[in-house]
């Protein structure tokens, strides 16, 4: 095919850009600065196209028998370009067309959607056929979105889009609790946690079984994780009934929540120091005498600043434990407070529907300039969102020793993105590849068997 003007421009954009050939971009005044030029360089030299393609192909790479060559091209992508131009239903034939499109468009955000029954970019051709050929999602990772803004009613350190190290432990708790439940309760293994680039975390569950879940099954899992209900108007946000906790909640409580509440959240958010804060906590106590006793006590005494929260928590707990005789309601109260202040809060809609889009890993957040790097759930308490590589930082690293160390090193290996990509490859992609292979083989066998013994169809 002749190269027309449009694709000529594309191919130029597709060339690896030489940073050294150009005058170095001036070091940004602010470390967090985001610039379209940096983004172009990032897409040109650092974005892990091949790894992303390997992930999203799930072994349908033409090498296995019984693999589906159209699989990757039926995946929906969407780009958000500068000035909020939003392109939906994009699809790519393979890694190189995906790479070319990303380099050309330089999207501020890349979202990944479902795998559809037909190529999403050709969906209109199927919109009028009727019956079962209607354009519809065929499979999709089970995804979760935890956003700090959903915790605004319990955060006093910051609010809205801001996060700090005082509230970030809430995300650590979410990762620990959900990750453990996904593995121990639901039996999933291929779970990818990703920093959203600003104020939350995303989770991709990629097991074959997870990708095949119906919307109803997705909803049931999302509901399984829902403990906090109600709104600001409703003082009691967590209702734990019955004389015991469900095993999943009990595990979360004893292994994660209790410790994080007492050692981090209680202190970081200073839950019991000011009247405004402890008022909220006391509102959750369904017994007026306990509430007034505590109020009086906490008004009259002022323990030293450092330990005010822990001390008062001990007092409250003690009183509530004594109140056990008053029945179950009070007995559950300590746990209810802990759950209300620590248990994960999910954006339910994202998880419930197959066709919901979620931002791709390794995007760069346009407000913070930070890369959406994977988070290792086994080491998530060490994750510091303030230390996630930023675009300017990465550019700097690329330029710094371009010539110094051996030329054989890949660009990303010389930057602080190295550990993230390394983790993505070794801890996520490699185990996933083994599952993909087994899955493809067994589905191939099943297909052969089905063809051999197709039952007479009775409608």
């Amino acid at each position, binding site marked *: 095919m002749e190269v027309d003007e449009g694709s000529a421009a594309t191919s130029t954009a597709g060339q690896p850009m030489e940073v050294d050939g150009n005058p170095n971009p001036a070091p940004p005044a602010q470390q967090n600065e985001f610039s379209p030029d940096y983004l172009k360089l990032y897409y040109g030299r650092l974005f892990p196209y091949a790894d992303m393609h390997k992930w999203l192909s799930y072994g349908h790479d033409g090498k296995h028998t019984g693999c589906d060559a159209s699989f990757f091209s039926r995946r929906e992508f969407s780009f958000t370009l500068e000035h909020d131009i939003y392109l939906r239903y994009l699809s790519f034939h393979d890694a190189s067309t995906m790479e070319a499109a990303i380099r050309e468009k330089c999207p501020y955000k890349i979202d990944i959607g479902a795998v559809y029954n037909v190529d999403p970019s050709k969906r209109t051709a199927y919109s009028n056929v*009727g*019956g*079962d050929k*209607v354009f*519809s999602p065929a499979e999709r990772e089970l995804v979760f979105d935890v956003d700090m803004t959903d915790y605004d009613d319990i955060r006093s350190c910051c609010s809205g889009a801001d996060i700090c190290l005082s509230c970030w432990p809430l995300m650590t708790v979410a990762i620990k609790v959900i990750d453990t439940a996904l593995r*121990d*309760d*639901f*039996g*999933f293994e291929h779970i990818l946690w990703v920093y959203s680039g600003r104020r939350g975390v995303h989770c991709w569950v990629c097991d074959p*079984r997870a990708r095949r*879940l*119906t919307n*109803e*099954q997705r*909803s*049931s*899992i999302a*509901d*399984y994780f829902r403990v906090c209900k109600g709104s600001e108007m409703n003082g009691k946000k967590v209702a*734990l*009934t*019955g*004389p*015991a*906790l*469900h*095993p*999943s*909640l*009990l595990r979360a409580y004893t292994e994660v929540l209790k410790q994080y509440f007492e050692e981090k959240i209680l202190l970081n958010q200073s839950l019991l120091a000011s009247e405004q804060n402890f008022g909220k906590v006391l509102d959750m106590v369904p017994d007026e005498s306990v509430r007034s006793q505590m109020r009086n006590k906490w008004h009259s005494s002022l323990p030293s600043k450092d330990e005010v929260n822990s001390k008062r928590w001990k007092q409250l707990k003690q009183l509530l434990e004594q109140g056990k005789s008053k029945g179950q309601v009070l007995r559950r109260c300590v746990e209810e407070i802990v759950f209300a202040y620590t248990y994960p809060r999910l954006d339910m809609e994202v998880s419930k529907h197959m066709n919901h889009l979620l931002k791709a890993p390794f995007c760069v957040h346009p407000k913070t300039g930070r890369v959406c790097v994977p988070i290792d759930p086994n080491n998530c308490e060490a994750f510091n969102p303030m230390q996630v590589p930023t675009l300017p930082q990465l550019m700097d690293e690329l330029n710094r020793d371009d010539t110094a160390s051996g030329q054989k090193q890949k660009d990303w290996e010389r930057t602080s993105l190295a550990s993230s990509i390394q983790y993505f490859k070794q801890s996520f992609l490699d185990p996933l590849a083994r599952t993909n292979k087994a899955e493809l083989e067994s589905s191939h066998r099943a297909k052969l068997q089905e063809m051999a013994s197709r039952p007479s*169809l*009775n*409608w």
Partner: protein
Amino acid sequence: MEFKVAGGRRTSFGDASDVGGVQSRLSFYSNSSDVDVSLEDFEQFAMDRLRVLKGIEEGRTRGRKAEEIDALVVDLWRKHMRTPNAADIATKDMVSHFVLRLAYCRTEELRRWFLAMESALFRARFRAESPESQRKFMEDQKLPYKAISSTEFESVKEKLGQVARSLNQPVPTADNTFYKVPFEEVPELVSARRVYLQRGFAFVPRDQLASIVVGQFRARLSKALALTNRLWTSTIAVEEKDRLTPIVEALSMRYLGADYSQPSKGFVGLQDLDNLAKNSFPLCMRHLFFNLRHEHHLKFGGRQQLGLFLKGIGLKLEDALNFWRSEFTVKLIRRLYILNLPRWLVEVVQMTTEKFDKEYGYSIRHNFGKEGKRVDYTPYSCMKIITSTPGVGDHHGCPYRHFSQENLRSVLEDQQLSSRTVDAVMEKVRNRHYQLACATTFEAIHGCPSDGINHPNQYFEQSRRALQGGGQAENTSSSNGLQSVPLPAHHDPPHPVERGTLPIPGP
């Protein structure tokens, strides 16, 4: 949860006096065996089931909980699905299910609705069965669920106890049976954390068995619906869209309120139509009418043009439905045989189509302003008909405008018009005065001058007046329906158009 009747006795569906020993009446509806039911019963069965499903939907939209829906279903089932002879309930159950399955297989939305309602219905019915008959049902259906061994029970005993206590239920002992199933099969139990989950398996207590079985029911019905749909769409070509789809659509129109209370001021009876068509229909409508009579088929444009005209001359809604139904049913039955459906079902569809179409014939009701936007659609004027663009296989439009010269001439000659009249008409057609041509035809047939033809309904009205000597209208509906034809309210007010002032550009 158990259902109590007034006496506080646990009950099951169907007649309480049911003879013992009858095998479980529940069904996965996996086979459609031949049944012996009178045709009269068929349509009633489907309607009755639809009422149950609609009742469930209503309960759901009111936000009732699953347990409340269960109780509601018991009532609905008893109310609508009872049969004079208790032994017939199973037949009624099966027949009505399969009829609706066919009607609701065609779109994703219909399938989802049917699946949800049938699953809720099944769930309630299963839960109302005795433990003994539940177990028997699962055995009969070869559901692969095995109770966990006592060893396995011991290993998870503590967790099972926690779940029970979290639900304010007694702690299970080794006597309680648990089933281990993939969590995907019990979404409602997962949602509410009513089961212990371990590495992808849910430990389901026996009393929550309904969830598993409903999951199976849902999965099987979902597959069956897709299969039915595939058969339906693969066998019926796109060309049938105009013919068949409206009828099957009528079956699935979820409208149930009988809207017959409004007295219809019809002046034309069904039995009069053939005569009227011969004597008083303008050529365009005559052509459509007799074409439909012969082919049992009209494409959409023709249906609209004729249907609205018939409405305009005072054909009652009911009669219109009957008319269209009988014409289309002939065709439908032929198609259904091609689909290779069970014999009884073809009959069911035939019967229910007639009845359903009568009650739900959407597009006809639509034209009568009873559906959709509830606009009372106006019969087409000559201008609209002349400027329409009929395609291949279409019969609507204006014969003077759209017929070939030879075709038009032969049609006119069939009307026993003199060759002089035919020449005069053809002359006007050549000059593109189609309405004048129509008026000339009118005058020749009726032997009296016309006021000008601007509207098919106006033609009809003038014709009736001419044939009846223009007497005072008696405002009664009568057996021949011909005495009184007041100007129907629904067509465009005739504009006084000077003869021959409406030349229409040729092709």
